């Protein structure tokens, strides 16, 4: 699925979105615990859904090679987070949806978890 499709499904606005039509996303992590993202080996082409808006979220995405970050409940990322995302070329989206609805819609569309085994 491309990031463009995800933007539509989540009715998201783009804070920073280079090449959204070319960025492919295959799996999703929904977490607010950065160490958990660093702990589980994240699958390629993963996207993070989170309620945290600080710059360490983007840093964690960079380190664990997560391709995009979605902030839920209309939470706008902090200025430092946006700056870092630009530097590291990591797309950032904001959706007004809750994490439950965002996860539900993406799961229903066939995306799977970025960690663990396929089920």
């Amino acid at each position, binding site marked *: 699925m491309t990031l463009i499709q995800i933007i539509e499904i989540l009715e998201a606005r783009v804070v920073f979105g280079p090449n959204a039509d070319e960025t492919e996303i295959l799996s999703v992590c929904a977490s*607010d*615990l*950065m*160490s*958990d993202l*660093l*702990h589980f080996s994240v699958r390629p082409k993963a996207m993070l859904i*989170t309620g*945290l808006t*600080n*710059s*360490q*979220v983007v*840093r*964690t995405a*960079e*380190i*664990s*090679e997560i391709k995009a970050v979605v902030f839920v409940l209309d939470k706008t990322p902090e200025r*430092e987070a946006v700056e870092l995302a630009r530097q*590291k070329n990591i797309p950032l989206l904001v959706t007004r949806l809750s994490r439950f609805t965002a996860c539900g819609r993406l799961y229903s569309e066939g995306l799977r978890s970025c960690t663990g085994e396929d089920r």
Partner: protein
Amino acid sequence: MIKGVIEGSFHITGGDFTNAGIASSEVKSILTGLGISSDIVRRAAIATFEAEMNVIIHAVAGVMHYYVSSERIRVVINDMGAGIPDIEQAMQEGFSTAPDWVREMGWGAGMGLPNIKKNSDVFRLESAVGEGTTLEIILNLREEDLHEAE
């Protein structure tokens, strides 16, 4: 090919969440630039990032030194801080002394040290209560982990 030992260091300031990760991010790009395979780079980046966060969360200040040769990546992090009274306990997944506000920033879930250990081949941790902590990690490099740098 990596000739000799490539080394450098970064200062880390306790409580500086805004700049958290800069050192690890730099280490990551240096290792990538040296042509080290992406899996090793990723493990090294995760281990150093967790170590950097530990200094930011728990210490007053610290220094991260890295040394890279064709045989290994070695990172040593010294900090001035409270120290760890019981290392065995600190190594347990889920054990954390981080305050609630740190948890609310997405850290302090008690996964940091186990994560560092998991991602390194050698893991040494020494601490003196009231003085500080020294962490040394090594990732061994095999010939096939080294590619010609682009």
